[in-house]
């Protein structure tokens, strides 16, 4: 348990982070994605359930695409939390395993960890779940390119490591 003052500080930083995050990434805002926790090389985000995001109108199960966006955003956030100083990053690849259907009507959480950072590439893995990380609905593994220096263009346009 962290001290109340540390906790208050964390909550304030979280609010600030979410404001930035929504300001900066329109698609995250459209999906209602929010960061709920962060740490060193670690991020946790929530995708609120919405009928707009349903893939199967018969069951009300969320579309895989919404889960992909959640995982892409959460994995990217985990990389930012690992960087010694902020640089632009770009997704190189992202693999999603759909382990079971998400429960209709329930928010989906994602937890991602950047477990290796090199000069050019960050490696991340994560899971999507409802309330128990040990019972995930999806698993993700991704690699991200880091920009080398300001003004040298997007790494997404220069994908070779």
């Amino acid at each position, binding site marked *: 348990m962290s001290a109340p003052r540390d906790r208050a500080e964390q909550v304030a930083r979280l609010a600030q982070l979410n404001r930035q995050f929504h300001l900066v990434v329109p698609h995250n805002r459209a999906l209602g994605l929010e960061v709920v926790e962060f740490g060193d090389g670690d991020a946790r985000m929530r995708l609120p359930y919405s009928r707009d995001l349903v893939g199967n109108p018969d069951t009300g199960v969320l579309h*895989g695409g919404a889960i992909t966006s959640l995982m*892409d955003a959460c994995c990217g956030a985990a990389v930012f939390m690992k960087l010694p100083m902020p640089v632009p990053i770009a997704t190189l690849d992202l693999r999603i395993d*759909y382990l079971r259907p998400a429960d209709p009507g*329930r928010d989906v959480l994602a937890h991602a960890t950047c477990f290796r950072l090199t000069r050019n590439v960050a490696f991340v893995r994560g899971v999507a779940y409802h309330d128990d990380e040990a019972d995930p609905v999806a698993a993700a593994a991704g690699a991200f390119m880091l920009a080398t220096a300001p003004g040298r263009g997007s790494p997404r*346009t220069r994908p070779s490591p």
Partner: protein
Amino acid sequence: MTEPCDRSTGLVELIAEAKRTNQPGRLTDIVPYARFMGLSMRHVAGELLGHLTYADMLIGNPALPALHGGALGALLESTAIFQLLWEAETVVLPKTIDITVEYLRTGRPIDTWAKGILTRQGRRVANVRVEAWQEDRQRPITIAHAHFLILPGPEGEVGDA
């Protein structure tokens, strides 16, 4: 917005009807997430293509600007599913097992097209490769390969997450 959708859509009948009348657009009309994203399936010169209409809310990086990786992943996954639905002789509701998305170039703030190719269809599993491009089809911006479970009947559900 926490209740699941009702079960009255009759997805299987709608899909069969869309195929019978050769109206691929009807496949996407019934998926809330596809409508939300501006995703559709279109016949272009006798070819079935996925189409993502540009909207500001699809942006993931406003500095470039670039489309969100999740939005492109959604286009690829949806196109793969609809391609599979379209080509399968009977109505099977594919369940995504996994998808790997590779980001090759920046998705610019314009419309994006995608084409799915059924690389192998087994009894239980179908392999689909998908490419997305913008103005130049020879320069794909994102590619993916995915596995789908295609058990006929109620065991499979389209768009499961």
